[in-house]
């Protein structure tokens, strides 16, 4: 079997969950690297080259808001959920639970 097939499918499967993972950790202010670490601590690894652009895109879509902190020597851009983002996050969680239970039903049926 071509090992690429499995890894490609796995990457595709994870891609949709990345937004959910990012939103879940942004109830408090985070900058790029701190978010990367927060996710990593909980065992979720997103490539930095994927994560940083993703944060920007979510901001452009209005799910995140950001502010520059210039008090330290190097300015940092902090992100957190916007009001809109909170709403959408909650709806996405519902959607997620629905998907999980649907999938579980299908997979368990198969196992029986």
């Amino acid at each position, binding site marked *: 079997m071509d090992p690429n097939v499995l890894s490609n499918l796995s990457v595709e499967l994870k891609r949709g969950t990345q937004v959910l993972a990012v939103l879940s950790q942004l109830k408090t202010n985070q900058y*790029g*690297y701190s978010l990367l670490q927060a996710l990593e601590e909980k065992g979720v690894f997103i490539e*930095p*080259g*994927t994560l*940083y*652009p993703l944060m920007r895109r979510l901001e*452009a879509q209005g799910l995140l808001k950001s502010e520059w902190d210039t008090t330290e020597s*190097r300015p940092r*851009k902090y992100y957190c959920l916007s009001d809109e983002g909170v709403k959408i996050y909650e709806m996405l969680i519902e959607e997620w639970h629905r998907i999980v239970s649907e999938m579980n039903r299908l997979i368990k049926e198969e196992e029986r």
Partner: protein
Amino acid sequence: MKKIIERYIYAVTKRLPENMREEVKEELNGNIHDMLSKDPTDEEIDKVLHELGHPRELARNYRGQDRYVISPLFYDDYIQVLKIVAIIFVAVSLVFGTFDAIIHVEATSVIGVIAEVFAKIISNSFSAFVNAFAWTTLIFWIIDYAVRNKKLPEWKLNDLPDLPSPKTTKISRVETLLGLVLGTAFSAVFIIFLVRYIDLVGIYENGVIVAQVFNPEVTNQFIVFFIISAVLGFNVSLMKLNFGEWRISLAIVYTAQELMSSILFIIFIRMENLILNEAFVKVGSYLDLAGDVVRSNFEKGVTGLTVFIIIVTIIDLISTWIKTLKHKKA
């Protein structure tokens, strides 16, 4: 080594739209330094930058959407059209290029002539291919750009292509394509000949023309008709390619076009003043005959040719209609 980070960031931001650059630069710079220790070694920088990935890839992630000259939606159509256009362009240039190359040879030795002719033909074909590629791509780019980010228009069931039905006679694609290529090439050569080289046709003595054969006053009147006929023929061939089988509508169009071009050609060769009198006189002088005798014999030849063309055309049309109608019993 600090410079390397700046260069990496530049490699990313230069691929982004102008209004994003400054912010992405600031943010990326911050992120990279956050990932590094206070006083990073060269290896550390190397590792972090590679973790971020190829600058091209990172820029693509920042941009968020892929950009195309020809989007995947049109790609298959584009390749199909490109193939046909390239074949036609190259074939026409092959024929015309050969003709042109032979007429305008500058080299004197036989080897020189052969080399020159081949070089011209190859360079003509190559530039014809480049032209075909450029024009097809440009036109598809414009179409693609025009419909980009728009939803495709509603499509109707009637717009779907018909299945090639086994109950009709297939038109061989290769044959049609070959006919298309040769037909177009021949028309192009013929028309260019009429436009530019007609007065070179004549009887030469010691390399000097002593009698011109064709009367440009007559041939010039026909140029526009031959162009129209060539364009029609070209379109009918495209229809044949497109339909892929003989159907009544196609047969009607084909008949009309075939009749028109045959009749046009017959009129052309039967024009009274097509051949200049000086040519008849000159030929007569070689054969010890009066110019009028040569002319009347020539006219018999033309009549024979006319009959031949009519018979061939009729046979072709009859066989076309048999192919079209033999499955239409219902």
